[in-house]
């Protein structure tokens, strides 16, 4: 599982590295003061790289390796509430072991940034790219971002800190196992000065300190608990505008603009793919192939999943006759999570888009570009079904 040596060679500003190492470089640049981590396949190269950078003196942080992911999140939360910038990383079983404390951390408004490598939940046991692990945490109060590439992963770690500390909510970023985590590619690693200019040091508005005397998370009455969720909703409500602003600012600094939704060739589109994560890369190529064959195809990629950019989705799909949702996840008993979310975003609007929910790549089966081209041709005229449609992938 280890990334191989000899891959980190510079070419101009670009360096060759895996998606996981790009995450570690992003974390290094963000200067977290506390970094509790527990290793798990396929996240381990993130931890390995962080410890390597730390021992070389390039990553100055207090690194902790507690006995489980549950303790990692407990550590992350308390460190964050005492005013430290905190980074951690996990995957699948590890993320799900944290579940109780994900709610806790968000309710306590801890501004943790966590990287999750999307991997199939057991059982059966597997190591394959599937987003059910993080998507099933959608109700925990964490902001959720999805990365398409190693470069995206580095960029999003840095922006996530800015976002978390601005709205006082924890932020989770995910990238797909294997196709992103273990893909070695050219990555632009920005200079520390650039990142320092973008991301100021964390100044906690409230913090635990023996000299101050404060308690966070004490028992409350019903109305106060109720109010805590209203406050979180208000913070979530600001995420879209803040991420749009920070993403544009990051774009001015690096040439790489980030936004809640990324649209590719959708202006005149008669059919669009809607997806998140690494499938978006393959979908871009499918869009170009379909356009060459005379079909006006496009792509709507969600970089931000929580809060759901519903207004932007409605606007992106306004006048688009057909949307094919590509879900690399399956919520048993309902369908693809993104399919459900998109339908709810469009419900009650005048929007007449025919939405098809396609289960592509569930369990990590391969989704070749030719398959996406075929699906666009097959579903263009079909009447949508309410539920999901299983698509056989390569390896099935």
């Amino acid at each position, binding site marked *: *599982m280890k990334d*191989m*040596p*000899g*891959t980190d*060679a510079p*070419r101009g500003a*670009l360096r*060759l590295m895996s998606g996981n190492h790009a995450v570690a470089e992003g974390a290094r640049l963000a200067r977290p003061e506390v970094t509790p981590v527990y290793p798990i*396949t*396929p996240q381990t190269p993130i931890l390995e790289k962080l410890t390597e950078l730390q021992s070389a003196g390039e990553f100055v942080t207090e690194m902790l390796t507690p006995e489980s992911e549950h303790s990692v999140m407990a550590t992350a939360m308390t460190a964050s509430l005492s005013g430290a910038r905190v980074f951690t990383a996990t995957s699948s079983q590890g993320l799900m072991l944290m579940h109780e404390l994900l709610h806790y951390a968000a309710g306590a408004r801890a501004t943790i940034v966590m990287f999750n490598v999307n991997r199939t939940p057991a059982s059966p046991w*597997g*190591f*394959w790219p599937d987003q059910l692990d993080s998507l099933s945490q959608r109700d925990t109060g964490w902001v959720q971002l999805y990365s*398409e*590439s190693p470069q995206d992963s580095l960029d999003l770690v840095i922006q996530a800190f800015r976002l978390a500390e601005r709205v006082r909510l924890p932020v989770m970023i995910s990238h*797909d196992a*294997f*196709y*992103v985590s*273990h*893909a*070695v*590619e*050219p990555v632009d690693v920005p200079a520390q000065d650039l990142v320092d200019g973008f991301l100021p040091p964390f100044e906690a508005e409230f913090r635990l300190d023996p000299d101050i005397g404060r308690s966070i998370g004490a028992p409350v009455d019903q109305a106060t608990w109720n109010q805590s969720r209203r406050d979180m909703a208000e913070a979530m409500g600001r995420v879209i505008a803040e991420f749009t602003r920070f993403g544009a600012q990051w774009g001015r600094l690096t040439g790489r603009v980030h936004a809640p939704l990324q649209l590719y060739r959708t202006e005149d589109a008669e059919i669009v793919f809607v997806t998140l994560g*690494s*499938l978006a*890369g*393959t979908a*871009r*190529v499918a869009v170009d192939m379909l356009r060459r064959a005379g079909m006006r195809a496009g792509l709507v990629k969600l970089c931000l999943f929580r809060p759901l950019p519903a207004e932007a989705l409605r606007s992106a799909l306004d006048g688009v006759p057909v949307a094919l949702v590509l879900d690399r996840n399956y919520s048993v008993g309902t369908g693809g999570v993104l399919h459900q979310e998109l339908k709810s975003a469009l419900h009650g609007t005048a929007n007449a888009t025919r939405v098809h929910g396609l289960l592509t790549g569930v369990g990590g089966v*391969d*989704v*070749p*570009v030719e398959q996406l081209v075929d699906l666009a041709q097959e579903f263009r005229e079909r009447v949508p079904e309410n539920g999901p449609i299983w698509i056989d992938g*390569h*390896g099935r």
Partner: protein
Amino acid sequence: MQEILILGRGGQGAQTAGNLLARAFFAEGKFVQTFATYGGARRGTPVSASLRVSARPIRLRSNISRANALLCFDDSLLDRNFLALAARDAVVLVNSAAPPERFARLAQVMDGGRILPLDGRAIARRNEMGKVVNSALIGGLAAVLQAPDLEGLASVIKATAPARTAENIAACREAYGLVRAEMAEVAA
């Protein structure tokens, strides 16, 4: 875009081969993407590495199903399933002491192209490399593809070899020369 598949047994260096080739192409200004089998991979089990090389940024995030060139570290692994991943007219370089005729029947499942044996073990032995064949095999593959540049590949080996740098480079050059000669002979 070129798509290359490498198949070997865990511990033989197939994944390292993918990384070294990627690094050499990257140094030439190409965009690259490489990833290796993971999960159940361990010493002795079949492992594969995939490599894409392009003049433009690579957006595909899927497996390679039509490779322009295939490299097989162990002839006992060369089967129809692996050859089914070959594009039309692909060249398959296989580490084997057997003569080319041994692979003639297997080659019939391919859509054009050919299977080219290269005795990596013998090259490794001649260069005091023991059983380490990956520097020879990437030299052979570079000759098949006529890329990356042999000198660039030698520099990558020089920068990354954990031991026996000169021997690794010599094995790479010898394999490159042998395969170049073989390719020229076929073309003539």
